[in-house]
């Protein structure tokens, strides 16, 4: 670690992992409710568990992005962070806001939470993923602005690299598009149209910029490959992400009352959305193959490659599976969407944050890489989580096909709940996969505390250090 202020990332990463555990526990609860409908009812209704599950995901990924930025920006910029005190202060504000929001979901009925937080003054609650009370949303805006100021000033007053500029563009986009969370018109078609300006333009737009820059940074560090090569890849990957993803938003406009031309535009542009992920995979494997050093942190390399592959499968392949309008006509709003959502979020965003953590955490703890045992356990957790998530995705896909067939395709379609009963076995298999994922996560957390011998570094190229 070159700069002391980089270590601020540590608290952000610890919080991220803590909230990640909470997210998975509530995922397991929901999986149980799918097979045993009255599980924890009426104490934790499904919608409450779901808000906790999805909101924890978003909050911990934001912690992960911020931590990653605080770690890499000083090093890339060649200077200490502009205002370390501000980063620490914002950490506590964000953590408090996040925890209070989750407790609010769990401790009082949602309508009561809306009343306590005076939702009537500026109603923004009750939309998928954006369920946070208005006051919490304002808190998010303040934290993100302070974060952007801090990161922005560090970048602009230091050395500017392609990685930091792309990261900054992604983070500014994240902040700007979040503002649509405050626009909730009574007209449902308009409401839905602009809701996607947060959701789609985050996960299929600016977050891809953040993801690609984090991945590029770690790959430079662990492979020692020439920065020029990496930067060229980075530009072309994010260029394709924006070229496909911006108009690709249209694949959400097929059935919400928007004009018919979106069926063509949405289908064509979202069909090319897998391209940046294909390129990311080629890029990752290419630079690892042409590496100029053997970094002792082998598991970080594994996470980096895993991110590229799983993002390609989850976002690219599973996204394409149901993105063409004639297919989406049947699959829209079925478990197929859940299948895609799970693997895409895991592959692209969860894994890129875990890649950053895997690379930087040992350095912040004073070593270049975790010890042999810790790396073995982390590798085991990588495979357990990745494989179980793949099974979750496959089972949800099967569930989606069953749903499409009985509820949408046949001549005399069956009611929703009748079809759900036919899927019970598959939902059980999904829940079991989810529990394996939880096991993988427990091993992951344990790996940070495992003791063992230091990894012996093999020097392949003596020109590079750290």
């Amino acid at each position: 670690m070159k700069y002391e202020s980089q270590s601020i990332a540590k608290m952000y990463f610890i919080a991220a992992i803590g909230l990640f555990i909470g997210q998975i526990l509530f995922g397991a609860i929901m999986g149980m409710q799918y097979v045993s409908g009255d599980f924890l009812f009426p104490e934790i209704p499904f919608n409450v568990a779901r808000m906790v599950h999805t909101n924890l995901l978003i909050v911990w990924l934001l912690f992960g992005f911020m931590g990653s930025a605080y770690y890499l920006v000083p090093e890339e910029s060649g200077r200490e962070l502009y205002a370390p005190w501000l980063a620490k202060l914002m950490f506590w504000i964000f953590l408090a806001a996040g925890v209070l929001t989750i407790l609010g979901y769990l401790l009082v009925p949602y309508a009561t939470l809306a009343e306590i937080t005076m939702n009537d003054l500026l109603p923004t609650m009750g939309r998928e993923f954006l369920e946070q009370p208005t006051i919490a949303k304002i808190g998010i805006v303040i934290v993100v602005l302070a974060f952007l100021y801090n990161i922005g000033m560090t970048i602009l007053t230091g050395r500017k690299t392609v990685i930091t500029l792309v990261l900054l563009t992604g983070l500014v986009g994240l902040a700007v598009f979040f503002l649509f969370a405050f626009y909730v018109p009574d007209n449902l078609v308009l409401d839905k149209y602009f809701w996607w300006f947060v959701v789609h333009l985050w996960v299929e737009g600016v977050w891809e910029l953040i993801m690609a820059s984090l991945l590029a940074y770690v790959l430079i560090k662990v492979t020692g490959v020439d920065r020029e090569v990496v930067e060229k890849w980075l530009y072309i990957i994010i260029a394709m992400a924006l070229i496909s993803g911006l108009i690709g938003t249209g694949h959400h406009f097929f059935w919400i009352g928007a004009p018919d031309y979106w069926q063509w535009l949405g289908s064509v542009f979202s069909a090319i959305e897998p391209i940046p992920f294909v390129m990311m995979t080629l890029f990752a494997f290419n630079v690892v193959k042409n590496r100029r050093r053997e970094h002792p942190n082998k598991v970080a390399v594994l996470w980096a490659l895993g991110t590229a592959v799983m993002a390609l499968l989850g976002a690219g392949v599973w996204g394409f599976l149901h993105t063409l309008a004639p297919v989406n006509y049947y699959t829209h709003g079925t478990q197929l969407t859940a299948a895609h959502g799970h693997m895409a979020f895991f592959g692209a965003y969860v894994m890129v944050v875990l890649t950053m953590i895997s690379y930087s955490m040992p350095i912040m703890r004073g070593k270049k890489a975790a010890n042999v045992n810790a790396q073995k356990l982390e590798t085991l957790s990588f495979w357990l989580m990745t494989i179980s998530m793949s099974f979750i995705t496959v089972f949800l896909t099967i569930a989606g096909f069953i749903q499409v067939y009985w509820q949408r395709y046949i001549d005399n379609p069956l009611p929703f709940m009748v079809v759900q009963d036919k899927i019970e076995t598959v939902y059980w298999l999904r829940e079991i996969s989810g529990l394996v994922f939880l096991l993988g996560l427990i091993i992951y957390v344990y790996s940070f505390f495992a003791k063992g011998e230091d990894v012996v570094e093999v020097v392949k190229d003596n020109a590079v250090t750290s």
Partner: protein
Amino acid sequence: MRETFTKGMARNIYYGGGVFFLLVLIGLTADTVTRISTTDNRENITEQVSAGKRLWEINDCVGCHSLLGEGAYFAPELANVYTRFGKSTEAIKGFIKSRPKDGIPGRRSMPQFNFTEEELEALAQFLKYVDGIKTARNWPPNIQG
């Protein structure tokens, strides 16, 4: 990548492509916002419908149900529930009212929200309004949602 394709070219594709398609998206959005006046059933957005939408939101209905295919997939699609329930707001109100407080053993059940008569009417009117939105190919595909 070969040397003929330089970093400068990649950068230009990024900036050029990004800005161009952002502008296209803004243009298409302007067009969409004008055109949807014929499909979005805005003439039926009464005060009651607005109140119903607010109730839909502050009870997080979308955390279990989907509406025009978006939301959760734990409970039935509601964009066409008005048609499915025989075009009867009374049937919708009756269903919401009848949910047992402690659920149904072993089954999924909608919580009992203890809505007032006025709130029930607003929710039912909101769902009736949503049913009237003209979607492409008349989505959902059939009455079961």
